[in-house]
């Protein structure tokens, strides 16, 4: 039994059309069909958060979402954070604060932090911890991740809002 569906969606600002099997998970669609390997596969049952992407601006687990359910949506993956070859201030802050060791959780951490800072531009450390509680880091580098997100908040605030650091995908 092969049940296939045509889907149309936007990923990182770019429109895609594809035919997918019903059981195709969104994370596999992004990685295997579109070649976007930024969303990682960890637990495959919605617990670890490394597959986190934004769907219509909201963080979701792409390992427990079907590709067919993403039909008509706008997806942002970690590949969509940098603009014109320049890292997003959040990514720079992660780099400068050594907020990654093995890097496996980093894509999910970045997207959760991106969502947090959009809703709460000046979070407290407690709010950052609460926000990233959905994502596991097995290097246990949480302290540096929290520091990086707080640092990114300062950097984003310092940047003139008109210049903007919003990736193209989120402006639509």
């Amino acid at each position, binding site marked *: *039994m092969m049940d296939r569906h045509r889907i149309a969606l936007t990923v990182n600002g770019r429109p895609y059309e594809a035919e997918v099997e019903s059981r195709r998970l969104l994370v596999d669609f992004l990685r295997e069909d579109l070649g976007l390997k930024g969303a990682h596969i960890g637990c495959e049952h919605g617990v670890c958060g490394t597959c986190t992407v934004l769907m219509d601006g909201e963080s*979701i687990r792409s390992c427990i979402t079907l590709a067919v359910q993403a039909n008509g949506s706008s997806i942002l993956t970690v590949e969509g954070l940098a603009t014109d070859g320049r890292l997003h201030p959040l990514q720079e802050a992660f780099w400068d604060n050594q907020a990654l060791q093995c890097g496996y959780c980093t894509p999910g951490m970045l997207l959760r932090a991106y969502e947090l800072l959009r809703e709460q531009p000046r979070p407290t450390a407690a709010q950052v911890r609460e926000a990233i509680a*959905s994502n596991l880091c097995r290097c246990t580098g949480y302290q540096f991740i929290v520091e990086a997100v707080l640092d990114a908040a300062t950097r984003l605030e310092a940047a003139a809002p008109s210049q903007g650091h919003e990736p193209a995908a989120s402006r639509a």
Partner: protein
Amino acid sequence: MKPPPFVYHAPSTIAEATALLHEAGEEGRVLAGGQSLIPLMNFRLARPGHLVDVTTVRALDYIRADDGQLRIGAAARQSAVERDQTAAARTPLLVEALHLVGHEPIRHRGTVVGSLAHADPSAEIPAVALAMGAELTAVGPRGERRIPASDFFTGPFSTALETGELLTEVSFPTWPPGTGHAFLEFARRHGDFAVAGAAALVHLEGEVVDRVAIALCGVAGTPVRATEAESRLLGERPTPAAIEAAAEAATSDLAPASDIHGSSAYRRQVARTYVRRALTLAVERARGGSR
């Protein structure tokens, strides 16, 4: 881990959804947020042949207040209810409990009605439905019927829903102004399923309890309403001693399962502590008015 093959359906009306479910029979499952069902399918613990997606039915995506009720359609996401001003005003107990459901990315996809249909005994929303006296609406081949939450949960992951029936709505009755609420739970980590949790609603007439509801999760095969404890508090002043006695009454007959998170006795003790704390906070809020 990938789900086994299935046929995906995206109906646009309730009639279309119920017709598809009827046709699929035992092979059919409703897909709402999918935050419990897709993991089960990834593990191949569930192998439905047909998934009927209710979130594509636009008419089911609503949160509205009418006639002293807060009505939530089957397609409404948990995070939408969490942010909804009307829900905050009418059903603060539900909103407080929603903060404890998984994590934000889960709540962005998960639905309130889907959590009720899934009927996980340690889940928060079913306990809230039981405490508030919610009513569920099911539509099936024989038409529509309304099921009180007290009749809905029949066992672990089991409900009164019949094959081919679709849960379309849950309605939570609004409690009177001045009602104090509290939902508290103990989990190993924030966002994990609770070892035990307690929901409490308290309304005072002067210094005396004139309306109260207590429900627990994580302590039995279904959420549990603590009617004995409620009747002990009714007409009484909610003193610390009365609250302690109610917490004892709410939990003394429980025989929760033992697992790696704790023994049966430990869970009962946690439940008793959380009933006491939830009642204490609800009473405090009832006295304080708007908090």
